[in-house]
């Protein structure tokens, strides 16, 4: 029997705004399957985003949905989770939203290890505004504001999250669709701040400027560069050149924020 996505989609809110060939819909379907696998109640699940193409995702979800300001998802979500720790809180957004204007909120959510899951769709570009380079655009790539090639080095989102203190960090791709829900399931189950970076594609504003002839070519690239972490362990640095490691990259058990604050309450009430 085919999976019933409609159970989680808000009635009357489709079609979505995403371009043909965009991977965001694949990520959303993966997220829906993960929510279904875990049996999360829609009315007890908050989905919070910032601004951008990926950040339009919450509107399609039949949950408590909060479409905030550019980069601010993690800070709004922190307020939701602190005030109601029993809610499941999932953040979604793009690479520009999360690592540029929202970078400060992102690293501090990691540091606090607040029990939320952040799904970051990394398509290497600001899509909604027409393809300006983001902190995740590869050096040398073309964007509407790097007509001579991007001089900036790019962030490694997973390393950033690990360095900032996130206790679960995973990476997948929009090509490896069936892996997405598995990573998100594990991320949500993890107690603490979990980050799932999904390498994604933007054929409209990134692909056409960077000599990708088709969406299929962009998807094939995701397929080719991804190396599962188990396989990567057996590969040399040379073999890993230009590859991206996927799977659960980091996992650590550490006290999470709302549990720690519950102890503050206990101490204050003594």
């Amino acid at each position, binding site marked *: 029997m085919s999976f019933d996505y409609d159970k989680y989609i*808000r009635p009357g*809110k489709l079609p979505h705004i995403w371009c043909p060939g965009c991977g965001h819909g694949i990520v959303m379907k993966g997220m829906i399957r993960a929510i279904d696998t875990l049996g999360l109640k*829609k*009315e*007890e699940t*908050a989905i*919070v985003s910032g601004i951008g193409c990926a950040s339009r995702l*919450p*509107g399609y979800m*039949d*949950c*408590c*949905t*909060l*479409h*905030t*300001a550019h980069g*601010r998802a993690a*800070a*709004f*979500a*922190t*307020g*939701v*989770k*602190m*005030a*109601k720790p*029993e*809610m499941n809180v999932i953040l979604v957004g793009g690479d520009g939203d999360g690592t540029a204007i929202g970078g*400060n*909120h992102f*690293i*501090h959510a990691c540091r606090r290890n607040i029990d939320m899951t952040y799904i970051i769709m990394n398509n290497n570009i600001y899509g909604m505004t027409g393809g300006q380079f983001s902190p995740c655009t590869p050096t040398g790539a073309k964007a509407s504001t790097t007509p001579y090639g991007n001089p900036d080095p790019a962030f490694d989102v997973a390393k950033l999250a690990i360095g900032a203190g996130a206790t679960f960090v995973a990476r997948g791709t929009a090509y490896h669709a069936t892996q997405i829900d598995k990573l998100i399931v594990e991320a949500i189950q993890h107690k603490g701040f979990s980050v799932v970076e999904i390498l994604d594609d933007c054929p409209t504003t990134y692909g056409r400027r960077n000599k990708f002839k088709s969406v299929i070519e962009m998807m094939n690239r995701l397929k080719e560069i991804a190396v599962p972490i188990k396989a990567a362990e057996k590969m040399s640095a040379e073999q890993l050149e230009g590859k991206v490691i996927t799977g659960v990259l980091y996992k650590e058990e550490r006290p999470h924020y709302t549990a720690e*604050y519950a102890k*503050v*309450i206990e*101490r*204050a*009430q003594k």
Partner: protein
Amino acid sequence: MAKKVAFLQGNEAAAQGALYAGCTFFGGYPITPSTEVAEVMSNELPKIGGKFIQMEDEIGAMASVIGASLTGAKVLTATSGPGLSLKQELIGYACIAETPCVIVNVMRGGPSTGMPTGPSQSDVMCAKWGTHGDHAAICLTPASVQELFEETVRAFNLAEKYRMPVMVMPDEIVAHMRERIVFPEPGELEVVNRTAPSVGPAEYKPYDTSFGDVPPLAAFGSGYKFHVTGLNKGQDGFPTTKAAWVQAEEERQIRKVDANVDDIVQFEEYELADAEVAVVAFGSTSRSARFAVNEARKQGIKAGLFRIKTFWPFPDKQIAALAGKVKRIITPEMNLGMCTGEVKRCAEGKTEVVGIFRVDGEPINPGQILEKIKEVK
């Protein structure tokens, strides 16, 4: 039983007022001269099972209180000038998403870092015009420690009643002075709670104007699922670009305040019955003004004081009436004419309005105002 009396600092009184109003969440960022509000909240909130969080920056603090408010909590943040500038992004969000929250902003100088942390009254325009776009504003400017407590309670009431951000803006003098305060008993001051939806989750819309200009707001995690955005939205909370609807909605959000000014605007009239010279002042400056008026009266000058308690919405009709009655209006303020401009707008040339401006980090003293009263009488 005798009432509880204390010798309290203004900022401490603001925090106590918030707790009296039922605040259970504070998100903040350290900044002088408002920090004591956060310090008291960090101490008191966990005792009642509430939550305090120190965020990574001012914007994050504002975001956290909006997020918490959407779960049904009464929420507070506190800041000062530079922080208020940063918070403007999300004050606009709270306006358009119609999310109740209270911001205590202690006025120090500016622009930018200015001269920390001397007294100032130069954030009053920022309270109304700081965030981009058309929006309503409520801003209260208390003049004593007792009033800072009471006006913070009122700020929560107005925020919940009108579903919008409300600012309490003491100047640094009021925020840092210590005075005797008599704590009201529980139930003595009115405490307004958010109107809960009267329909079930299936029929609920977060901006359903069939319930009036202030639609009931449900809470995340209470069985209701709904969408909140900073985009212009329809009744169901989803983005819309329908021209007629967007226009009507923007107007409704302004009307929430405009149609209720008599419920919101508070002021004090002192010795104005036969006054020929009126001083219009707010915050700590109004205390100097009262002293000056008393001195002027002793010297046979018919002076009076109109004290602004609610700066926004501005007491337009009261100032217009005053301008039609007195020969001169004097407007002392710790900025370069922000209140004066508003008074002139309301006076419409019916009387001369003379400002006393001070931005050197020193308070306006009674002698300065008395001198002006004698000069213009």
